[in-house]
């Protein structure tokens, strides 16, 4: 058994930022455990630009953004266990991991969960049809192309208009493939508008909304897909079925936080975010175990992952130093038009202002958000538009939490 103050599970953007923040908060004995041979996680395969505008004030590609934090980790001398897979976290914060050197058992004073997420698979989507080669999740195709240098198809249909799907539509086009269509089962895109412009419109790729892949064809390799429009219940409308010949189907239909370790450790998860239930310190319901990044909630921008990870890393350090005491909390809740609010509980009164992160249930025009506890309005904010694909942040001043003991609800109303 070895001992470390803080063990960070995952060396992607969340893990790296959490490690550096923990170190800077005065706990020097921080280690990162990562599955791969290089830090950076999925950023390593996100070779497109658009990262860092918010956090670093400049536009970088994924690998460049990762390199900034990789350097931060290296400069602080933070130890990294590479090619090491965590297989268990016990309630007492003993982390069991495995690598080519053997089985490691690390006793940690605090643990930060930063394992990221996985893509929803064809199986989970339950798309009927045959089971040929050529059905890839967008991220797998991205890795094969961008990191390993192999093309995965020549004529492509993409299901799902999340950002990864849009980015891959452009990548496949740039690499010489013909992208026949991007289909989105919802009546709106899950990706950022700028990505629809620069990834689809620039390349003349059609986006079909309220449309899904109803069937996959081909025995050995994909030969085509049947696409069809869907009704309000997302059921296929038979008479709209049409066949698109293609050799590849890419799936970009949502990300699922990888919380199997979290569940095994008995840490309660939210049914909405599929991530742990946390307070404003990103502390889970198990004391000394924190979570951040896409394992906590799926983000649309890595910059916000870094922000969140810094909160978790700093809090883990405060916990180790004995400064994070259990306190009275109240729950937060999603009101009208809001799908979820994170953190799911907040300390009252908090030491600092608290930012509430949320996603809306559907696209809206101009909206006013209201944060209320009982009848008391804690904060309000107006935004020109709201979309489920874009995470929203509303900050509530610390002093507004005085004398609060009822659930805090965030709701929205459309305004003219």
């Amino acid at each position, binding site marked *: 058994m070895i001992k470390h103050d803080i063990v960070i599970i995952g060396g992607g953007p969340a893990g790296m930022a959490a490690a550096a923040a923990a170190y800077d908060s005065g706990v020097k004995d921080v280690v990162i455990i990562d599955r791969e041979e290089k830090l950076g996680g999925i950023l390593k395969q996100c070779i497109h630009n658009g990262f860092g505008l918010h956090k670093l004030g400049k536009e970088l590609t994924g690998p460049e953004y990762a390199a900034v934090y990789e350097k931060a980790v290296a400069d602080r001398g933070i130890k990294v266990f590479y090619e090491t897979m965590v297989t268990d976290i016990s309630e007492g914060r003993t982390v069991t991991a495995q*690598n080519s050197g053997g089985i490691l*058992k690390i006793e940690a004073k605090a643990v930060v969960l930063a394992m990221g997420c*996985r893509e929803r698979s064809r199986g989970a989507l339950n798309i009927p049809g045959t089971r040929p080669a050529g059905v890839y999740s967008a991220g797998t195709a991205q890795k094969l192309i961008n990191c390993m240098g192999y093309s995965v198809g020549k004529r492509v249909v993409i299901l799902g208009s999340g950002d990864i799907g849009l980015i891959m539509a452009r990548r496949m086009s740039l690499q010489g493939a013909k992208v026949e269509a991007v289909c989105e089962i919802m009546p709106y895109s899950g990706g950022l508008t700028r990505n629809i412009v620069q990834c689809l419109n620039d390349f003349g790729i059609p986006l079909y909304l309220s449309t899904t892949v109803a069937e996959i064809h081909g025995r*050995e390799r994909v030969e085509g897909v049947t696409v069809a429009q869907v009704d309000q219940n997302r059921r296929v409308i038979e008479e709209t079925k049409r066949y698109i010949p293609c050799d590849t189907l890419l799936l970009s239909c949502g990300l699922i936080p990888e919380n199997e370790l979290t569940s095994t450790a008995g840490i309660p998860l939210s049914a909405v975010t599929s991530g742990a239930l946390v307070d404003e310190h990103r502390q889970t319901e198990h004391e000394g175990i924190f979570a951040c990044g896409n394992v906590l909630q799926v983000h649309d921008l890595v910059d916000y992952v870094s922000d969140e990870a810094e909160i978790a890393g700093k809090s883990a350090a405060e916990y180790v130093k004995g400064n994070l005491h259990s306190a009275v909390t109240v729950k937060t809740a999603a009101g009208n038009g809001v799908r979820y609010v994170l953190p799911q509980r907040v300390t009252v009164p908090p030491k600092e202002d608290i930012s509430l992160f949320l996603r809306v249930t559907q696209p809206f025009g101009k909206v006013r958000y209201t944060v209320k506890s009982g009848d008391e309005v804690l904060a309000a904010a107006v935004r020109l538009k709201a979309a489920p694909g874009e995470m929203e942040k509303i900050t509530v001043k610390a002093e507004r939490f005085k004398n609060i003991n009822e659930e805090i609800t965030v709701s929205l109303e459309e305004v003219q």
Partner: protein
Amino acid sequence: MYDVAIIGAGVIGGMVARELTKYRLSVCLLEKENDVACGASKANSGIVHGGYDPAPDTLKAKLNVIGVEKLFAAANKLNVPIKRNGSLVCAFSADEDKTVKELYERGIKNGVKGLKILSGNEARLEESNLSENVTSALLVTNAGIVCPYELTIAAVGNAMDNGAALRTNYEVTAIVKAEDGFRICSADGRQITAKYLINCAGCYADKIAELLGDKFFEIIPRAGEYMLLDKAEGKTVSHTVFQVPTKEGKGILVTPTVDGNLLTGPTALEVDSPENNETTLTGLDTVAALAKKSVPTVNFRNVITSFSGVRSSEKKGDFIIRASEKVENLIHVAAIDSPGLTSSVAIAEYTVDILKSIGAELRENPDFNGERENPHFFRTMSDEEKNEYIKAHPEYGRIVCRCEIVSEGEIRDAVKRNPPAHDIDGIKRRTRSGMGRCQGGFCSPFVAELLAEENNWPLETVTKKGKESYMFTGKL
């Protein structure tokens, strides 16, 4: 010149091959696909049936009932996970209660032990998530679960370890009967000769019979669709939960698998061709609706994959296992649908008896070793044992498949051991890499690299399941 050629490397062909290697015979298994267990043996319920279902005095009844214990014994020797979890056949009405009684009586007649009729409440005590609407159930205590493709891989592997040959991508297109034996030709121009021929070609058994002018039966391909759920749902039931057969069909089962997942299905739909193994929206909807009839709490949000398997039925409904009346030295083992998996070892022994009866000389093979090393030895170790093992074999420390925790060492083993994996799906069926919740999203690039490296192939030639199932369209 082989003593015996077997066409079809499914569970039956594999078990027959293994049985034959107990004797001093040269055996060759011919398989049209890139791997073994690619037909019905890869996509079925994986159930060890008690034996109450087949009509008395049929071959099915006879081989099922003696087959259960034979299968448990063989699976244990082959180190294939098998579990006696028992099954419940549920009734939902007074009419169906009668069917439960009939099944019970039929089971007694067939010689099945450990049968018991339970009331609805007694059944719910056995299985707490069972529907409130279950009125009675037949408890079958000798029934169990096994992984059908692992069993097939192990049977073929053990036969190969004992000297049998396996030729894959060997689609038999012509068979010439000469004085001294059969000349069996493949689509790609290969040929072998053998004195005896055993037809275990599954859904293609009638086509093989036809090549020899001996088509006295017709295979009806019948597709069954399934949905497999995440291990998080694996404890929803502990027994295999059946519904009593009705006019509409045999009903949908809900069962744990030996690997800890939950399996639901199958539908039963006659199809034009054995290749028609696609899933359909209607089929999957039917599975979901009927599974919930027995176990309302099945959470289909946690489906990780769906698939369809095509079984080989015949209109008379019984197995066809006999020497050809027309062609000397030919044995047909055909129409092996349910309970074929349960009966597989009994079928193999029965087939070898026929071989003996038609004059084959069977001398015992003193070198036969019926045991197969456990391919999953690593994952069954304790942390301390793993630690020791990794120190000597570092490749077992590197995890490739994070969902099922499969190491590089286990994947390399699957390429080297009998029968060797040649493609991504082959690795998946042997190691479970890619079998978990991400369905190969993370591990398939690494698995492709390992396959290419072990075989000295360029990476772009790696396939999902042989032939034209290419993964890559070129190097950038």
